[in-house]
């Protein structure tokens, strides 16, 4: 333990604690920009400078560990002046059109300038070269706003193991972006949007698709249905100053209805549908391997997360057979809405507009994949992020926090608790096990509260094994089998797990991969700022939603049963094959000219 004094307060902290962390413990807030919790500090922005007694120069508090007897002044005149200067220099290079910037009121640079009472910029400087990159469906890069803090570089390289972004060039001319300042679509970007989630300013953001949605809502010829992903209900409240982890399912439904959507449905419905298809697919693969002694691609990987799919298409083309052929819940929903539901209500698929609210920027990419048009038109027309929906609600003049609770419409609106937990890491696996175990044994998953404990939480890679005993006659081949499952979230973790599997170090039957740290609740389209504390709170909210449901297992969902009865017949039927399943293709890492 180390004894230090911060602004005349004595405090004892473990060795290795940074000045920034120690200050937080005595209630002192030091501004930061380049700092990213849990990552190696790079000390690039100098916005966190503090005065350490006896030191000749000011210290970057994010990168300086405390030392025994240190006396620190965080807000001395000298420290404040230096920090102000650091921000002023950033502003002098910055294209500061706040009013028309998508980060207006949600911008760390703007907030800092305000907190430091910067009224004018003393050093008018050369502006960064503007590069507007609108090459991808999910993201927009606006280099004139970039302050070169490199948070996006850290996330894209260290957490996501993609490396689409990297500093190009040197000195003032440095551009943070893809190779040789090419556009993002020329390199291997998976569209996860984690860069947009950590960018402190308006330099990387989701592609705004709200205009198209407004137009559809205002068009009387269009029948507009909306689906909301499981992770939205635990985060949308944050757009309206609620604590992270506030569940707002009912208010969200009411808001959507008041905005004019013809039907308010639930991606959760499609999550239950996914479990029916994917669970059956897994059992079929196991049967072919164990009984038919066929060469079957195992382990099977989940396929709900479009960033992960694109990642596999780039980096693990030899594993594409192992991906479940199931479409993601977003796409299953679109396909069902524009076929089954459209014909049920007598609307032509061309006249139906399906809007999804997603925690995710990769969903914008996914719904534009050319093969996602099994209804004859694009199955999903617009994917909006949680943040975009927040802005639309605001623009619609809806006072969100005072709304009464609403209920999802039938028939694509009902869901089980198993669907809720699709929102967090470990959830899809748990949902699948709840159903698969019961199909095979005829008994409920014998775990407390139906939770697979080793798969919960924020550990990067999680493993569990489940012994199957006393099966129903049809599943005798699984009797005594120990089903091994693995879960990874964040593509860096996924990559590590896959290499372990490829090298034979990890034997496993079924793997859940989610692109974003924490799963969808930590998606690239969620309200900012998402750190581990926020992730935990959202996950707790999701489990609460699950436990509050009467139905906890996908196969118990009576609307799912009805759709199978009326339309699909059974899982993996020919019709479900056509509408609910898909295929993947290898992608080149760089565009070949």
């Amino acid at each position: 333990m180390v004894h230090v004094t911060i602004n005349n307060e004595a405090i004892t902290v473990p060795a290795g604690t940074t000045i920034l962390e120690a200050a937080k413990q005595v209630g002192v807030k030091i501004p930061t920009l380049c700092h990213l919790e849990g990552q190696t500090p790079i000390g690039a922005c100098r916005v966190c400078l503090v005065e350490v007694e006896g030191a000749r120069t000011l210290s970057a508090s994010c990168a300086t560990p405390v030392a025994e007897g240190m006396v620190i002044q965080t807000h001395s005149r000298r420290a404040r002046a230096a920090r102000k200067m650091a921000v002023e220099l950033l502003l002098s290079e910055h294209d500061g059109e706040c009013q028309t910037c998508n980060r207006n009121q949600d911008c760390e640079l703007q907030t800092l300038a305000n907190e430091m009472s910067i009224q004018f910029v003393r050093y008018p400087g050369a502006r960064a070269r503007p590069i507007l990159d609108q090459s991808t469906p999910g993201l927009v890069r606006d280099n004139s706003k970039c302050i070169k803090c490199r948070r996006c570089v850290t996330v894209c390289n260290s957490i996501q193991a993609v490396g689409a972004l990297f500093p190009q060039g040197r000195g003032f001319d440095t551009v943070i972006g893809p190779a040789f300042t090419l556009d993002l679509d020329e390199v291997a970007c998976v569209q996860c949007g984690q860069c947009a989630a950590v960018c402190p300013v308006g330099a990387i953001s989701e592609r705004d698709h709200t205009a198209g949605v407004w137009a559809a809502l205002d068009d009387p010829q269009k029948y507009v249905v909306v689906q909301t992903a499981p992770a939205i209900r635990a985060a949308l409240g944050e757009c309206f100053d609620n604590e992270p982890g506030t569940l707002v399912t009912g208010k969200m439904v009411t808001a959507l209805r008041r905005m004019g959507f013809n039907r308010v449905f639930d991606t959760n419905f499609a999550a239950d549908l996914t479990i029916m298809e994917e669970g059956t697919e897994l059992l079929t693969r196991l049967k072919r391997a164990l009984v038919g002694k066929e060469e079957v691609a195992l382990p099977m990987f989940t396929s709900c997360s479009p960033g992960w799919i694109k990642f596999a298409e780039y980096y693990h083309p030899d594993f594409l057979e192992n991906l479940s052929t199931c479409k993601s819940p977003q796409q299953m929903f679109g396909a069902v809405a524009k076929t089954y539901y459209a014909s049920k209500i007598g609307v032509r698929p061309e006249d139906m507009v399906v809007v999804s609210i997603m925690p995710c920027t990769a969903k914008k990419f996914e719904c534009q994949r050319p093969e996602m048009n099994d209804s004859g038109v694009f199955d999903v027309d617009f994917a909006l992020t949680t943040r975009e929906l927040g802005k639309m609600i605001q623009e619609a003049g809806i006072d969100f926090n005072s709304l009464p609770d609403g209920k999802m419409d039938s028939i694509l609106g009902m869901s089980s608790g198993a669907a809720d937990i699709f929102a967090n890491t470990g959830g899809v696996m748990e949902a699948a096990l709840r159903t698969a175990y019961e199909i095979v044994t005829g008994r409920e998953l014998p775990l407390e509260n139906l939770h697979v404990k080793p798969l919960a939480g924020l550990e990067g890679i999680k493993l569990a094994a489940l012994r199957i005993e006393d099966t129903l006659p049809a599943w005798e081949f699984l009797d005594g089998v120990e089903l091994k499952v693995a879960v990874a979230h964040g593509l860096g973790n996924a990559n590590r797990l896959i290499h372990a599997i490829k090298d034979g170090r990890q034997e496993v039957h079924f793997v859940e991969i989610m692109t974003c740290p924490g799963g969808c609740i930590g998606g690239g389209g969620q309200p900012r700022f998402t750190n581990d504390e926020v992730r935990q709170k959202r996950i707790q909210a999701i489990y609460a939603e699950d436990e509050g449901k009467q139905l906890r297992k996908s196969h118990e969902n009576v609307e799912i049963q009805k759709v199978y009865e009326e339309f699909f017949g059974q899982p993996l039927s020919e019709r479900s094959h056509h509408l609910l399943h898909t295929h993947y293709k290898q992608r080149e890492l760089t565009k070949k000219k």
Partner: protein
Amino acid sequence: MERSTHACACAGCSEQNEEQMLAQLDDILTDYVNKPGGLIPAMQTCQKMFGYLPKPVLKRISERFGKSYSEVAGVTSFYSFFSTVPRGKHMVRVCLGTACYVRGGKEVLRAIKKELAIDVGETTADRNFSLDVGRCFGACGLAPVIMVDDDVHQRVKPAKIGAILRLYADSEATPAEAELAK
């Protein structure tokens, strides 16, 4: 067979095509891939081999090293000794150190740009000249200074640029002729 568009600097293979080039590259890279810190030396070797770092070469380097293309490009563009455009037969470097700068280095640079019709970092269409700037060639007393390949030209005046460059224009200038022009 498809002709390479690259000016290859290595002896005797000016007509090598891209496939051969990349095959050769793979052999070379194998020596570096498993060495810690092998990326930059590998890139230096490639630059020597090709005279510059063509994009297909950088893509192959990124694949072999398991590093993203953006990272390899970032490293390339960080170090001034790497070039992604072919270098001309002759490298013209203009000193913009303090002494040269105040004594007309900037005007000299402008004259060279005009004469060769290229910008800094570029190569003339006939691949004869590349243009670069430098900081202090250690001849401050004789500023402004330019270097063409290994020849130092001192007290250069913008008006003399044409004559100096013509010495190299056919790439046949003898050292003695170059000496005369100094």
